[in-house]
């Protein structure tokens, strides 16, 4: 086990590095640079030259990459080309916001998905199951912006119950005003929840009739215990991987939600960095995402390793 973890961790470093290289290569394939972005439709060649000189954009691309990598290893991911501020601060601020948003969503998913999945799976084929399944798929297939806009229009604009956006709030601001979180978290949760709940539902439906479950029933174990102790663990083993997907989805993929609610999170931050051709930021975000993916997957693998028997007993 320890050897496995060590090997995977070494691999993880390699993966992150590879991701950085690819992202950098992609980034340099895209025409234009930060100077172009900053100039927009005004500005002139002299200004552009001065700007490139100041930002160090006239250095060859690979040299910039190595410089950045060097300073990263020294613990400093550099300064944003656009704002000139330390990248670490900017991303840290946005990460705090994303985490404040993602944690409640994650908690909701972790609680509700098994509950819904189990309820529907145990009553597979009944009207309740069909209703829950239809609702889940419906929520999953509504375009996110439609869902968000309808919620905002009804709950914030018309009823005035909840704030419509999180405009201008940082992580601490969000915590101080939790009502702001309600709608974004709801929209964010809806999709992931449906995904996970449906996977658990099939798992439960398959497991509830399995031979071990039937055996426990024959021995007179109450259904609740059969479900909790046998059906659920067996159904959750594959779902743990899906849950890992969820974490990634919540951290990075919450783009639509972040922009619709004007949440200053890493999703929109990354998009902005890419659009602004802000290489140090893009690279740092890439590292953040790659790191998250790798760690979450490793965790998912270890969990399912614990939950499910190993693949081969003999070497």
């Amino acid at each position, binding site marked *: 086990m320890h050897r496995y973890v060590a090997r995977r961790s070494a691999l993880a470093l390699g993966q992150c590095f590879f991701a950085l290289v690819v992202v950098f290569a992609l980034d340099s394939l895209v025409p234009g640079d930060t100077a172009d972005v900053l100039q*927009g439709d005004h500005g002139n060649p002299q200004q552009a030259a001065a700007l490139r000189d100041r930002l160090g954009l006239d250095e060859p691309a690979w040299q910039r990459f190595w410089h950045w990598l060097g300073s990263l290893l020294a613990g400093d991911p550099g300064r944003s080309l656009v704002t000139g501020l330390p990248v670490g601060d*900017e991303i840290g601020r946005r990460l705090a916001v994303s985490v404040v948003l993602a944690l409640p969503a994650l908690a909701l998913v972790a609680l509700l998905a098994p509950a819904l999945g189990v309820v529907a799976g145990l009553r597979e084929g009944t009207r309740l199951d069909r209703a829950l399944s239809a609702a889940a798929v419906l929520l999953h297939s509504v375009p996110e912006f439609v869902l968000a806009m309808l919620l905002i229009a009804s709950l914030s604009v018309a009823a005035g119950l909840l704030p419509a956006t999180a405009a*201008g709030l940082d992580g601490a601001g969000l915590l101080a005003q939790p009502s702001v979180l309600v709608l974004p978290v709801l929209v964010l949760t809806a999709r992931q929840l449906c995904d996970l709940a449906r996977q658990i539902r099939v798992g439960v439906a398959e497991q509830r009739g399995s031979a071990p479950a039937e055996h426990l029933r024959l021995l007179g174990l109450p259904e609740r215990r059969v479900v909790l102790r046998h059906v659920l663990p067996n159904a959750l083993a594959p779902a743990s991987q899906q849950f890992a997907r969820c974490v990634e989805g919540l951290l990075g993929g919450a783009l639509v939600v972040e922009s619709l609610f*004007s949440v200053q999170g890493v999703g929109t931050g990354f998009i902005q960095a890419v659009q602004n051709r802000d290489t140090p930021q893009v690279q740092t975000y890439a590292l953040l995402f790659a790191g998250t993916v790798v760690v979450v997957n490793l965790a998912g693998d270890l969990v399912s390793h614990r939950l499910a028997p190993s693949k081969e007993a003999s070497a």
Partner: protein
Amino acid sequence: PPGDGGGRSGRFRAAFTAGGSQETLDPHVAPNFVDQARAKALFDTLATYNDDMSVRGRLAESWESDASGRRWHIRLRKASFHDGEPVTAKDVLYSYRRAADPKTGSPSQQLLSAVDFGKSRASGARELTLVLKDPDFEFPTAFAGPGTEIVPEGTTSFRHPVGSGPFRYASFKPGGIAHFVRWKGHWAGAPRISDLEIVPVNEESARVNALLSGQVQYAGDISGSFIDRLEHADAVRVLTSRGATAQQLLLRTGRAPFDDPKLVEALLLGVDREALVRVALAGRGTVGNDLFGKGLRGYPAELPQRERDVERARDLVREAGAKGLSFTLETSTVDASWESASTLIARQLGDVGLHVTPRKRASTTYFSEIKEKGVAALNTTSTLPVSDFLQQRLRSGVARNLTGFDSGRFDELMDRARSTREEKERLGLLHRAQRIARDESGMLVWGFSDAHDGVSASVKGLRSAVPNSHFWARFDDVEPS
């Protein structure tokens, strides 16, 4: 809670797009609306633009030139910075020199680079003379240009900016809310609201929702279908400034196939401007006549409207030997209307026998890309003084001449106009130059789209105005309700 912080407490919140902003309070680096709104609150300029882009004084009480149009004498009004120091001629010289430095990156760098700072002098605490390298009787437009704000002499850091504008700096986090408070010592009288917060909200729908739910009292830069929604909401008013943005189709006259004037003319005749305004702008705009600045000072309003003539256009295409020619039309999401405009233009030109494929490019680097690439591109320009526009976009060889228009006659007329003291005569020359540009420059101005901002119905004191002009984002006029 929603609706909190309305006018009653004297706090006013305004939402703007902030994507791509450098997130600095340096007024000389102010490319975006949000930067300009922040600069307008903290700083003053020597002058501002009226609605027709004529210039009116602000910090400058008066200005006049000598007979050559080279030496401009300026008198400042009595005003002071937030730290109590008076605004002096030295501050003006320092600010202008800074903005004229290409390293600073001011949008008005080109305008101010006309000044010979070696010869320009402060002739008193509130008087100065700017000496130009070349005569220019239209020079005062530079006093009102964006990025020409007056900062105290020697300022290099804008962490805690000091200006002479109606609001004082209170706090600002990059990417977050800029909080300013009323400055009682402003020369034009203190603003009526006590606090101004400028909130960055990038997504348009979020700005609209924030406004509708009362989280902000002002939402800048709203386009397209959201206007309909706001117009139907009781709690909200829409400030519309007509024809604020010139919508253009740029044809590279220097490159094949548009090096053939026949083809350029065919396109001018083949585009249905009215349909474009009706559909792409949803009727919220006016039809263009292939010239910039409809309704502004110096615009030749007497020219007849150019109409679509499919037959003639088709003939011209045939004559140019370009039947069935295909080319790509560069477009982007820079402007909300381009998506439809490009589709529609492609279809309209299909009628005259041309095959046009829109090609979308990234919005942030769009302008630098179309400088290098492509033969046809969409473009917008927000309101500027007409002479500045002609000078900067259509003279041969200038950096922002995107069509490659190169006409000795045009350049000569422009030079003569600039050195003509008599205003009427000067404008006459500009008219003549514009006639040439209209037919030959390859710049097809098909319409002028309206600009919209939303405000809460309860807000008083704000009026609609084109961006760059005096009344746009003039939050010191807002009355607390």
